């Protein structure tokens, strides 16, 4: 890892400078993570007086528990749906804004601000819209003979959280797609146009392939977002219900551990999620470094 050509000679100062960051990192990040790993191999008696080493028991149990396996599938469905919907819409909007010269900025502003809406608030907003007694969408859906009720119907509940989570993520994806599109050299487009390629052909054969580093980067970030940052969306709308239908992996760690006080199982779930984040981060840093290079 590189430093400057010339550096300051100093004995104690650099340690003082990194100390605050490292102390907080160790106390609040690394130590708790270590504790999670440790207690995922242990069982505590009901009074918390003694713990015994149980090896992989919690992990083996988890993978036999239908609830957990269902939650894995549900989380995958949720993550994929949100990633595809929010990235798809964002790409269309970014391509459209990129075509405009003057009006582009105004549209951008109007598309960017939902980034600042927190996941909980996004959840509350959509919950209000889909609310079965006063909500506006169920009222409209009734004309199509659809009886909307996300409090009883698991599919409806899943659609609700997918819509809310995707809505919130559009601005982020839009911003990065737009940045990616703006760095595609205009000369390539012009050359293709002279050769007679129409706008759609130009997009699919030139722009979209050049955009693939951005697309890949966003896929990783969006998976990360739906796995971990949507806690607020779920807590504000369905709270994992009805009948577990929207209980994603992260929400399950919270309900099993914090509300249900099942520490061993919750720790094992935490450790599995940690491994997942580590894989995502490694992929991101190995392959995304080369982002936006043409």
């Amino acid at each position, binding site marked *: *890892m*590189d430093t*400057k*050509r*010339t*550096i*300051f000679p*100093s004995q104690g*100062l*650099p*340690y003082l*400078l*990194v100390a*605050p*960051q*490292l102390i*907080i*990192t160790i*106390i609040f*990040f690394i130590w708790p993570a270590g*504790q*999670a790993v440790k*207690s995922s191999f242990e069982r505590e008696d009901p009074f918390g007086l003694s713990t015994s080493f149980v090896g992989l028991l919690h992990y083996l149990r988890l993978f036999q528990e239908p609830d957990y396996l269902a939650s894995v599938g549900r989380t995958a469905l949720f993550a994929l749906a949100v990633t595809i919907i929010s990235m798809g*819409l964002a790409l*269309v*909007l970014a391509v*459209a*804004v990129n075509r405009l010269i003057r009006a582009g900025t105004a*549209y951008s502003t*109007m*598309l*960017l*601000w*939902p980034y*600042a*809406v*927190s*996941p*909980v*608030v*996004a959840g*509350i907003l*959509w919950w*209000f*819209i889909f609310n079965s*007694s*006063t909500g*506006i969408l169920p*009222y409209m859906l009734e004309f199509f003979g659809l009886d909307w009720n996300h409090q009883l119907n698991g599919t409806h509940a899943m659609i609700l959280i997918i819509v809310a989570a995707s809505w919130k993520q*559009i601005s982020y994806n839009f911003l990065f797609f737009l940045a990616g599109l703006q760095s595609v050299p*205009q000369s390539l487009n012009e050359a293709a146009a002279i050769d007679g390629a129409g706008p759609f052909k130009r997009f699919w054969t030139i722009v979209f392939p050049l955009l693939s580093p951005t697309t890949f*980067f966003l896929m990783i970030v969006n998976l990360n977002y739906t796995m971990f940052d949507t806690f607020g969306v779920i*807590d504000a709308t369905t709270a994992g219900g009805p009948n577990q239908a929207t209980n994603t992996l*992260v929400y399950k760690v919270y309900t099993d551990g*914090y509300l249900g006080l099942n520490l061993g199982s919750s720790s094992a779930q*935490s450790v599995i*999620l940690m491994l997942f*984040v*580590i894989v995502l*981060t490694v992929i991101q840093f190995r392959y995304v470094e080369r982002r936006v290079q043409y």
Partner: protein
Amino acid sequence: MVENRPWLTFLTHFVLICGVVIVVFPVYIALIASTHGPTALSSGMMPLLPGAELWNNVVQVLTEERRGVAPFWLMAWNSLWMAIIITVGKIAISIISAYAIVYFRFPGRVLAFWLIFITLMLPVEVRIIPTFAVVANLGMLNSYLGLTIPLIASATATFLFRQFFMTVPDEMMEAARVDGAGPIKFFRDILLPLSRTNIAALCVILFIYGWMQYLWPLLVTTDPKYYTLMMGVKRMAAVADADPQWNTIMAAVVMAMLPPVLIVIFMQRLFVKGLVETEK
């Protein structure tokens, strides 16, 4: 634009208007709801045009005492402090650690870098219980310290400053040393002023980040005195099924989301810079 195709331009505007409508729709509904009286919203079809009750609803939110929640102004105050402490703290500790990593060579430097890097892989969400236990053991539940300190370590901000410091020409530092400036003077008088834009961009991003926190305050506060706005509006909304007061709840929601939204709209350039650079 490569060539002029009127129908395509029309399509572009059409797509964008649809996009803006989708994006604005939920907030528009919330705004409308916050301008009506309680009866207009419980009578089946929701009105789509603004009513005249906005002021009353806002006053009611600001003055009314609700069961199980702290007063609105207190929660707003807590959210504000939480966001400010997180912003200032993160920037402070990451700029000095990036400075140490770039401008010094000391044993353990690479280890320090990796320890900071690892924080990226450990979001709060995956270590809820043990982190809660640490904070509880330190006696930091129900305090501003407990709300903020565990969220302050940040790999992304450190990386951003490291990246930026690497682009500062070496000659700057050589010149400063020739003139007899020590490391602290160089940092304060040269590096810090040069980092102004980066700091400002990070401020925007981190303030929004701090304001949005939900899970962490939910875990470490049990005393309503320390509730934040995000928790407060969620609690208010949760009782809305039993006691529908959607008009005031939506007024509270709109007020709670307003500060970060205004920041994004009015500081768009810094916001975009901050978001794009921290993700590199």
